């Protein structure tokens, strides 16, 4: 089923495949950036909790 004509997409391959590739990039970026954002927030929360416990950084 997946032969040369499939990849050629009836002559529209240079539009169809970049379209799907860009969608993959956008989805992957969303997941990566969201997880990175959460990890950074967890680190900040942990640091704030540590500072609250030790009293360092509090006025």
């Amino acid at each position, binding site marked *: 089923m997946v032969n040369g004509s499939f990849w050629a997409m009836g002559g529209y391959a240079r539009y169809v495949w970049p379209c799907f590739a860009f969608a993959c990039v956008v989805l992957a970026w969303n997941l990566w950036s969201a997880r990175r954002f959460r990890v950074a927030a967890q680190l900040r929360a942990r640091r*704030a909790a540590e500072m609250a416990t030790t009293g360092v950084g509090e006025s």
Partner: protein
Amino acid sequence: MWTWFYKLASPPYVYGVAAALAPWFLGGAALAMGYGLVAGLAIAPPDYQQGQAFRMIYVHVPGALLSLTVYTVMATASAVALIWRIKLGHAVSAASAPIGASFTILALVTGSLWGRPMWGTYWAWDPRLTSELILLFLYAGVMSLRLAFEDPSRGDRAAALLAIVGVVNVPIVHFSVVWWNSLHQGATIVKLGAPSMPGSMLWPLLSMWLGFMLFFAAVLCIRLQGEVLNRERQATWIREAVKSW
């Protein structure tokens, strides 16, 4: 009866629910998109006019629909935050904005790639394309405005106002192909009456749409956890939760 609704205003409850639901949404999105991709790329027949080029619909239309859906979610959350002073509304709004902006970019880029072979140009100042570009500027404005104030609560309020005012653009994007002469084709699935596609093309599209919706829900849950942590950093429940990480 309304207890569950009131609980949605509680940051610890929402944090826990978001953490529990995110993997399920992500799994559902993978299944729906997996089916949609295989059926859309390999099983659905070529279009009688556009040939194989029509397959771009399977990422372009879900991306475009999500760009409008996410904006509506963002504006609704902003309204909830302003009217009922529920701070979590601002958190949902802030978490939604970058996701919606990325889906808007996806819709614009994939639409441009589709436009080149069909219209002979990557871009035209067409009502649908222009209003979608304005949607991207609105997302950028909401994100920038939130960061433009030293006092985060003022930034939240200003961004919420812009999000609510900008929601007027959502029906303009959707109905632009009806109200004005447009290069862009009319609505295919979100319209009154039956969808103008045969089932073999439609089911993969609906599956991709569902997959994108579930993906948005998953990413929103993950971002919302980060927003709640950033906003509630000094709260006792977070200090307790940190100990278990």
